[in-house]
């Protein structure tokens, strides 16, 4: 089959779409080269006289709420991933939409998880036209095989806020799952059986969508405090039996990886940060809950204790390890973007220095600054890195969509960005000649830490000089790539991909940095 795509070669040398699902898009121009102008998008004017004076906005079901919000063909419906792989709400929303007989919806989730596999039937039946969000697990597979009607668009958390603010995406109906809410629509993630910590991913949607529906399984009398989501933005409140499976929302306790190789890589990354002079009093770092990233924080904790160093703030996903650091006085603040275990939720509830954040504070391109660029050291994962330090986080080396972007692209703005990654996974080299999909431009990626050596981006002469004379195993990225290929038994073949473009990857400013093509079986 031939496709008549309108494409252009962007500043990164990638052939990208300039028209996606009938809408115009701008090719990537280079880092910090694109700056939309004009005025921000805005929701319609509403007046309090149209809302119940007693503040009770309850309606009996999601279906009823969608109907009242005027759901119709072609609309954009958003949901959020703070309930992660335990989320029931997104599936309930599209089941209701299907019952109402609407078609060609655009699903605009902040991320999707394997629990959303039932969405596939709505993609097949035409209820949903395409997804703009992340696709992994069964949805990633479905999309990669070219089965989705429209073209998917993947954005970072910050890019999602940007797209809503500059009008690239207009949300018709936002459905916010709330572990705790009152009948007015005030909501938070701190209390209730589905407590998840914070609701920051839904903030933009609450402010910019035409209609906002809050769905909860833990309705409290007004006022629900704190109001992470303000009821003044909310149209309807729906009570359901359960919004999610608590065991899959947060883990009881986060376990540190047991993999000796990952631990070693994380330890090397922490040691690098120390020896490069980054870890010093008043510094800041970003840590996730992923295996190596969490282990980095744990090794950093040891280093900080040993050297009597205290951080000003830690940004990122919180776990019991971070809350312990807060309680031990190793950091003044946690600026929490996503809470991963019950200890994290408890700490956020009890400790005023454990602050919830949102993509607006941390990542938003149209903010007057954001936190990401103020962080001293950031550790992130990647599926592939190439010899120009470009990195891929969304596709597997065989071209299959695997992960969402999350805050990954936004975090690249940190002062020093370290990717602690293995040189190869099973037989798959991680350092390659050219990434399958470009998600992060190499000029923002500073250090690659592998179990067989550390490569510093030649642009970072300051870091190269800072670690001169240390025992760190500094090597060139080409050397690391060659070693990976030697171990894996030669250069890997490039995947043969189809003509069909199944997804577009956005940069943080809304431009198209790359596209993903169909995987052939």
């Amino acid at each position, binding site marked *: 089959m031939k496709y008549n795509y309108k494409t252009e070669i962007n500043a990164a040398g990638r052939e990208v779409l300039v028209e996606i699902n009938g809408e115009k898009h701008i090719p990537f121009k280079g880092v910090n080269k694109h700056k939309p102008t004009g005025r921000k998008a805005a929701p319609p004017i509403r007046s309090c006289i149209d809302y119940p004076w007693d503040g009770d906005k309850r309606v009996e079901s999601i279906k009823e709420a969608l109907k009242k919000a005027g759901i119709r063909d072609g609309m954009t419906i958003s949901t959020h991933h703070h309930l992660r792989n335990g989320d029931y709400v997104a599936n309930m929303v599209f089941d209701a939409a299907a019952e109402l007989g609407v078609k060609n919806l655009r699903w605009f989730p902040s991320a999707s998880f394997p629990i959303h596999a039932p969405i596939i039937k709505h993609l097949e039946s035409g209820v949903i036209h395409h997804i703009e969000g992340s696709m992994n697990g069964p949805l990633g597979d479905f999309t990669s095989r070219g089965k989705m009607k429209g073209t998917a668009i993947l954005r970072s958390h910050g890019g999602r806020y940007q797209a809503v603010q500059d009008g690239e995406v207009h949300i018709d109906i936002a459905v916010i799952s709330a572990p705790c809410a009152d009948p007015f629509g005030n909501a938070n993630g701190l209390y209730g059986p589905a407590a998840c910590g914070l609701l920051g991913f839904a903030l933009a949607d609450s402010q910019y969508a035409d209609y906002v529906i809050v769905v909860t399984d833990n309705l409290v009398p007004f006022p629900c405090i704190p109001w992470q989501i303000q009821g003044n933005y909310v149209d309807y409140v729906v009570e359901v039996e359960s919004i999610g499976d608590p065991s899959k929302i947060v883990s009881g306790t986060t376990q540190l990886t047991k993999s000796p190789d990952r631990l070693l890589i994380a330890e090397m990354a922490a040691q690098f940060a120390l020896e490069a002079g980054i870890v010093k009093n008043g510094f800041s770092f970003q840590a996730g809950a992923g295996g190596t990233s969490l282990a980095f924080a744990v090794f950093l904790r040891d280093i900080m204790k040993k050297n009597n160093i205290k951080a000003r703030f830690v940004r990122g996903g919180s776990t019991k390890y971070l809350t312990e650091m807060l309680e031990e006085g190793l950091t003044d603040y946690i600026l929490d973007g996503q809470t991963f275990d019950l200890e994290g939720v408890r700490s956020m509830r009890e400790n005023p220095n454990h602050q919830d954040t949102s993509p607006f504070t941390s990542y938003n391109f149209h903010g007057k600054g954001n936190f990401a660029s103020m962080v001293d050291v950031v550790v992130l994962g990647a599926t592939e890195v190439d010899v120009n330090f470009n990195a891929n986080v969304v596709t597997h*080396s065989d071209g299959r969509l695997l992960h969402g972007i999350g805050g990954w692209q936004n975090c690249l703005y940190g002062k020093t960005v370290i990717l602690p990654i293995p040189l190869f996974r099973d037989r*798959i080299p991680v350092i390659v000649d050219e990434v399958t999909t470009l998600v992060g431009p190499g000029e923002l990626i500073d250090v690659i830490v592998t179990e067989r050596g550390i490569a510093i981006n030649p642009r970072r002469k300051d870091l190269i000089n800072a670690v001169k004379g240390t025992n760190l195993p500094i090597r060139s990225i080409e050397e690391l790539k060659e070693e990976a290929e030697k171990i894996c*038994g*030669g250069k890997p*073949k490039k995947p043969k991909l189809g003509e069909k473009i199944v997804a577009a990857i956005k940069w943080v400013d809304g431009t198209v940095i790359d596209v993903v093509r169909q995987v052939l079986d």
Partner: protein
Amino acid sequence: MSIKTSEAGNKGDKIRSDCWVSLKVGDGIKGVNLNLESKVKVLYGDSIKDLIFDMMKFFGIEDVEIEMIDTGALPFVIMARIEAAIKRLGLDKGKKYLPSWEYEFKRSERDRFRRSRLYLPGDQPKFFLNAAIHKPDGLILDLEDSVAPPAKDAARILVRNALRSIDFKGAERMVRINQLPLGYEDLEEVIPQKVDLILIPKVEFPEQIKEIDRKVDEILKENPDTFDPYYMPIIESAAGVMNAYSIAKASKRIVALAIGLEDYTADIGTQRTNEGRESFFARSMLVNAAKAAGIQAIDTVFSDVNDMEGLRESVIEAKSLGFDGKGCIHPRQIRVIHEAFAPTEKEIEKAKKIVLAFEEAERKGLGVVSLGSKMIDPPVVKRALRTINLALKEGLINENWRDEQ
């Protein structure tokens, strides 16, 4: 002729970096038919196919049905699995499909440091690939207790291939063989692969060592380019403990005696405790036998991989008893062992003084070394030099420490 089948390798959800292969030959099977399922099919499918066809050609197998489930096995693993399956069918004709040497290996020094030696189960290739990055003094590819009896033949081929293909990054290349007579087959396969050291399990009498010596001599005659291996007998019984000295003296190839306490405590009819009173005699006996024979004494493994403090204490105790090394079963144990064996500041200071006095005496051509009014015997000097080397290796002092005195 009816249909004959064989299989080798591992498959299943938890298997990584390995493959499973089945071969079918006999009536009605014509040509080489391959059904390949691989995690890396897109990236390496063609090269895997080429390898399999080349192997069939090498062994002269023209009619065969091959099924392979690959979870990201490296080429040397695929080669070993296929060779094992061919051997199980009796179609190998005595030939071996050897991977080419990927790295250069230097013979290890007889009295090198052997503080840590990491056991790797010989039939689980996923553990082989990254073991060396954790920098143990020695890596043991184990063919004995960690390999189930039905997998012994396949593990032997896998270990042979690993010795040719993996970068040991300076770790001493060790193999633990099975008890005789199975151990003979192990020796035939691994001695030609430049193995540095053979761990010999359950040694009770010096005659066991002599039997191995005869076999090794034989293999060396046919393989002049390989290394003449060292031995590390493992003492795991009351009889072994009582004969420790004569065992230590049984061959010039022996560089260390190791103790295995699991079997030993069972043999004397007791159980292992953390305190270890039940094994104090055996451990002390082993240290004395080893030192009397001029070789190293290596302590048993510490089996609780989550208890790093317990490990540290156990190493400090072992060091105080005179042991030079400790076995380990998890890479995270290596660092702790090295730290615990590292000389203390006091030991380093004392060693520095002795070494300087020794060098002073040498410069002046004096026959005796003295420190103040004390005479220093050669073993003390030797010990001090070793302490300095260890301190250097651990980064506790730097190369020009003499200038800083």
